[in-house]
């Protein structure tokens, strides 16, 4: 009796996975063309203020709609990729994480900045961030905000680290003092940021300039450091699921004296009475004693969609959003480091970043993550290989990683 309905029930169950939704619209204010800007929801409110500024300056030619994306980079990418792959003309501008440029450019989802526009995009920008919008000789977006990780430490508990401070020394010191080192080691992009910085700090690469797999013994060195921390008493609780914010919380709770993290942790510490004064900063630790470190480089660039119906206005709006004034706003309210060099001498920015010198030096010295259209596949391969941190095997990691990345690049399963 039940049996007769089963095939239908099975088919109905498989259909449950389907769904769809829509956001945003094309209607702007009185006659102005609407430009939809897909960007993460900046909690400081500086993106919204930049949008308001630009809408005023456009003299009614365009109105930017700020369409807020989730705060997790992986989720932002998923949403943008889905829409752009479907040639959705609702997106005019998209904020792209620095690692997505090659993928989006190769797929033909974003348009290059050429001629005069190219000079606007390049004008006055720092080298590191500018490098992230370059792919195959073209400029694919305007650098907006940058980011890098510093070593944050408790001034009241540990000595200021020397210039050639290494990961090994930091872990040993934390073990000796009975405290922890906060890192990002959950299985997500943040783990790739760490591993890539460790590999680059040892002078290695994951993918070379030609886009070929270049994994060598430096990958083993990275695994050794990762495993050493994960299996030492200096590993923070929940290390294998910690992201940026858990690291911040752990540091603020006082359980750790060292933290590797982005600059947002500094303004965030304001909430705790007297805590900011206890925070010291230094350059990202070295992988090897004799080689300078290669700190991670993060940040966002603004790109114009191939499927936008108002590309000319979209370029104009992007220029405005990434203007030095609006970058200063993001620095002041959101703690996001600027990509335009001159903004660093703005008094408000200087006040927001007491560590501005270290920040600039870190951005200049940063080691880029692999520039390849298969970046997200490679990222997943790295995540799988180096997670969980305490179980990674330094002796086999090189061949495992090489094998997985080769499969990732060929579009195979790994």
């Amino acid at each position, binding site marked *: 009796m039940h049996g007769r309905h089963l095939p239908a029930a099975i088919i109905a169950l498989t259909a449950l996975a389907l769904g769809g939704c829509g956001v945003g619209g094309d209607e702007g204010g009185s006659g102005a063309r609407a430009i939809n800007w897909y960007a993460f929801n900046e909690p400081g409110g500086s993106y919204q203020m930049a949008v308001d500024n630009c809408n005023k300056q456009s003299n009614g030619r365009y109105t930017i709609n700020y369409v807020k994306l989730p705060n997790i980079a992986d989720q932002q990418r998923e949403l943008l990729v889905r829409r752009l792959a479907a040639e959705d003309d609702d997106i005019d501008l998209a904020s792209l994480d620095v690692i997505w440029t090659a993928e989006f450019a190769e*797929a033909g989802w974003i348009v290059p900045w050429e001629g005069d526009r190219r000079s606007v995009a390049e004008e006055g920008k720092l080298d590191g961030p500018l490098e992230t919008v370059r792919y195959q000789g073209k400029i694919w977006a305007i650098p907006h905000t940058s980011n890098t990780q510093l070593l944050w430490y408790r001034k009241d508990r540990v000595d200021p680290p020397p210039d050639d401070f290494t990961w090994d020394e930091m872990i040993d010191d934390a073990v000796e003092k009975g405290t922890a080192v906060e890192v990002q080691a959950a299985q997500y992009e943040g783990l790739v940021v760490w591993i890539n910085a460790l590999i680059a700090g040892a002078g290695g690469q994951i993918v070379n300039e030609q886009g070929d797999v270049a994994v060598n013994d430096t990958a083993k060195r990275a695994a050794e450091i990762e495993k050493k921390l994960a299996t030492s008493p200096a590993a923070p609780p929940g290390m294998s699921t910690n992201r940026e914010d858990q690291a911040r919380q752990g540091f603020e709770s006082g359980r750790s004296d060292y933290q590797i993290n982005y600059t947002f942790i500094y303004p965030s510490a304001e909430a705790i009475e007297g805590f900011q004064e206890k925070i010291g900063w230094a350059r990202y630790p070295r992988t090897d004693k004799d080689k300078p470190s290669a700190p991670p480089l993060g940040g966002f660039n603004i790109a114009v969609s191939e499927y936008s119906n108002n590309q000319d206005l979209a370029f104009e709006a992007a220029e405005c959003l990434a203007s030095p004034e609006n970058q200063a706003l993001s620095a002041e309210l959101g703690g996001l480091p600027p990509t335009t060099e001159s903004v660093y001498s703005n008094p408000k920015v200087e006040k927001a970043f007491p560590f501005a010198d270290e920040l600039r030096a870190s951005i200049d010295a940063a080691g880029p993550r692999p520039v390849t259209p298969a970046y*997200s596949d490679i990222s997943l391969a790295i*995540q799988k290989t180096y997670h969980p941190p305490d179980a990674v095997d330094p002796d086999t990691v090189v061949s495992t990683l090489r094998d997985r990345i080769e499969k990732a690049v060929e579009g195979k399963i790994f």
Partner: protein
Amino acid sequence: MEAATTSARTAAPPKRGMTERARAERKLAWILCAPAVIAMLLVTGYPIAYAFYLSLQKFDLRFPDEKEFVGLSNYADVLSSSTWWSDLLTTVIITVVSVSFELVLGMLIALVMHRAIFGRGPVRAAILIPYGIVTVVAAFAWRYAFDPTSGFVFGLPLVPDTWQPLNTKEGSLFVIIAAEVWKTTPFMALLLLAGLALVPDELHEAAKVDGASALQRFFRITLPLMKPAILVALLFRTLDAFRIFDNIFIIQPGGALGTESVSILGYNVLINRVNLGLGSAISILIFICVILIAFLFVKGLGTSTAQQRGET
């Protein structure tokens, strides 16, 4: 056996013998069914066929120019990878363990609901609350409960402070299965309650008179009579549990620490890597697994109902 064949013969009478009226009724039946059949084909038949078509292509949304027909090589790729098999094993473990717990707990709850003398309505409503909560919300609740920094579980007596389930594979699977069991046991209980209601009281009374104990009555009368209901409940839950996605997605994002189920794998390939060819092959393989499970259960169901008819 014999009974089954005779009933099959009576169920499908020869067409020639149909009266005018019967023929008209049959035609009407087809017309009335048609909209549902067409809607079903549109929303299920087409996507499944399209997914199968995609699974035969090399097709990555990022490299549309490289699209080409590759036959079954995507399937070969998936089936020859250790990832697929380890994910399948994880999925089977989660399915078997969670459905077993749900069956036992669901049966106990169904008995409680069946026997509740006063406050029947409130008791049933209270038991159903977990099922009414959105899975993602429930998953977040479980994740936060076991969060290494803020989880309340670690403040409870008898729970060691050093226990960090979300840091290990076994611990994560435990939390995922617990969340799954907590969430869907009420569904199981509801289906079993329906079966329980079908067991006639007279049989129990007769057995009682004959001196059967409560346990004997449960195993000798209630369970056999409930078998069809139990199998249907098991089938529904097994199919559901096999496609587990949301609990893992929230509790151990990305299927970290070896908690990746086949659905998470499909999601990673389809949505993250936008590799439609390979991802569709995974989807079709999941579909085939689901059909196999259903087939096994339906076969089981068929024999059990026939046996029952023979017995009574």
